[in-house]
């Protein structure tokens, strides 16, 4: 009997030991958390970077932009990620100076599940606002029919899916809605999480996409890749110039191309951009890190990774439907990365 007990113990130890062998290299391991919007790209970057630098392991968890801001503020992670820039109040609360490093551009698209509609629907800003305010409740509402005369919209209730977590995608979306709808601006307003007037919540871009995909009559909003990669129908949106625009790398780049004065802290909004062919619900996504790093090895690995991601790594963006960073931003980003220090030592030695 005693032997049996020992066997049980040995078995447990053996099982625990199994994991040990698999342990990949990674003398420095970086943990990041935040936005789900760029998660597929960050995951790809992490995997690619790990192949080139076996000594660096990067673990990114998509928990929502609100989470990215909160967790970097509480220093539970090495870097945060968000699609909505931190507010001044949030920046003040952090125990050190936080930098916003733009990583990539993306589009937020309205997604829907209407099997009988084959052509992409056209939405306008005010109509989207009314849909999410719960003022338009049927798919064959006159306002929608006017935008889509031949779509054959069904007499079916619209069920709205929004984010249940703090989200930068929500920030971009509500930032846009606040610009085009006074009712939205004075109502829910723009933030990473708002007081939703209607609908149900799902966690993450992934959760919203999965929910809409599984349920007919649903309307939601997600980052483009989540719609494109999962064959979920997404609508075109009428931009400031009055033309319906399909979300694509080109139309997002067009929106970013209209940037005139870039603020020095790189916190900027590119929604409802003026240009021809500019997709109106375009957004930028940032990685957040402390200018003063506590751990030199980690800080160095982090800025080197960010340098790579904002330069060579950009080539990986397009296949995943993200638009590369505009060229004019690069010098500003480089200056930011070079300013990161540990102690008083700058961390980026040779780019």
């Amino acid at each position, binding site marked *: *009997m*005693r032997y*049996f*007990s020992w066997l*049980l*113990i040995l078995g*447990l130890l053996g*099982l*625990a030991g*199994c*994991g040990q062998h*698999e*342990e*990949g290299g*990674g003398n420095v*391991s970086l*943990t990041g*958390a935040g936005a789900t919007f760029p998660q*597929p790209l960050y*995951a*790809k970057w*992490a*995997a690619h970077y790990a192949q080139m630098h076996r000594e660096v*392991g990067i*673990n*990114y*968890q998509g928990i929502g932009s609100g989470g990215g801001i909160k*967790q970097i503020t*509480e*220093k*539970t*992670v090495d870097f945060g990620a968000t699609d909505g820039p931190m507010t001044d109040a949030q920046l003040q609360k952090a*125990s050190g100076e936080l930098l916003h490093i733009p990583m990539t551009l993306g589009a937020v698209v309205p997604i829907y599940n209407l099997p009988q509609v084959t052509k992409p629907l056209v939405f306008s800003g005010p109509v989207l606002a009314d849909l999410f305010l719960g003022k338009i409740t049927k798919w064959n509402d006159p306002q929608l029919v006017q935008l889509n005369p031949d779509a054959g919209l069904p007499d079916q209730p619209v069920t709205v899916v929004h984010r249940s977590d703090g989200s930068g995608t929500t920030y971009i979306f509500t930032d846009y809605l606040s610009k085009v709808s006074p009712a939205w601006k004075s109502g829910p307003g723009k933030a990473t999480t708002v007081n939703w007037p209607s609908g149900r919540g*799902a*966690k*993450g871009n*992934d*959760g919203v*996409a*999965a929910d809409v*995909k599984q349920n007919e009559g649903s309307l939601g909003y997600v980052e483009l890749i*989540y719609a494109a*990669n*999962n064959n*979920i129908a997404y609508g075109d949106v009428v931009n400031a110039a009055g033309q319906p625009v399909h979300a694509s790398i080109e139309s997002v780049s067009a929106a970013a191309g209209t940037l005139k004065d870039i603020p020095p802290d790189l916190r900027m909004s590119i929604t409802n951009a003026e240009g021809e062919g500019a997709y109106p619900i375009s957004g930028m996504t940032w990685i957040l890190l402390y200018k003063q790093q506590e751990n030199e090895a980690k800080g160095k690995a982090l800025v080197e990774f960010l340098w790579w991601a904002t330069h060579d790594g950009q080539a990986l963006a397009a296949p995943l439907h993200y638009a590369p960073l505009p060229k004019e931003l690069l010098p500003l980003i480089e200056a930011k990365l070079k300013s990161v220090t540990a102690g008083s030592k700058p961390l980026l030695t040779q780019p």
Partner: protein
Amino acid sequence: MSPVYRRWKSRLFLGLMGLALLVCLVPLASLLLTLVVKGGHVISLRFLTAGWQPVGERGGGIAHAIAGSLYLLGVATLIAAPLGLAKGLFLARGDRHWLTGPVRVLLDVMSGIPAIIVGVFVYTLVVRRGGFSLGTGFSLLAGGLALAMIMLPIFARTTEEAVRAIPPSVDEAGLALGLPRRRVVLWIVLRSAVPAVLTGLFLALARVAGEAAPLLFTAFGSNAFPGSPLEPAGSLPQLLFEYARQPFEELVRQAWGAALVLVAMILAVRLLTHAYTRWRYGGHGGHA
């Protein structure tokens, strides 16, 4: 009332109970069937031994989460086992002490705390930086601690019962030989209770192995194999929760695979301990 009426009434109600049993078996059957069918398709040697791959790349597996789960359970055992053992011994062999009553009640009460609150508690006290918190950040250690807090009351109770099952005559025999009380308790009583104590430990492990709620804000999740105890760690339940809400078919498939692996592991432990208890104590054994 005629006997016929009474007999039919009896049959009717017994029939209703039978119906209740059948209705309750439907979801169980559906769950197990879906699990085996959907999960079975995914499971392969590669799936069980390979680590995480980003969506779109082939050959991703869940080995990092399996390893993470085992590490977390290991840490939880290291924390909960000594404490639970001490508590169980105290409750079973410290009868006259005025604290045994309150301690037992509090243990029972502790086992009813919702797992999610344990997560909030450990986050506030251990994970978060600043304030009175230990500030470990998301870590294997914090996750293990959260699991340990759920394990502790279960393990302490099973230990108490295991030790209580050793008749006092055994103690008396030891004391009559002139051994000090502590030796009697540790060498004779505890030693005879070891198999039952271990069974309890494994049952407690099986119980917490499936918990995701306490890990969300503590171990946090990771795509990498567990490294240092101060880094975040993945786990099967957390991966399952994560993947289940993914729109990517591949990840949903993996979620089913992971679910099957998790349930199989837990059931295996339970069935083994059950069989062992039966074999050892014969007959019906405890129903564990």
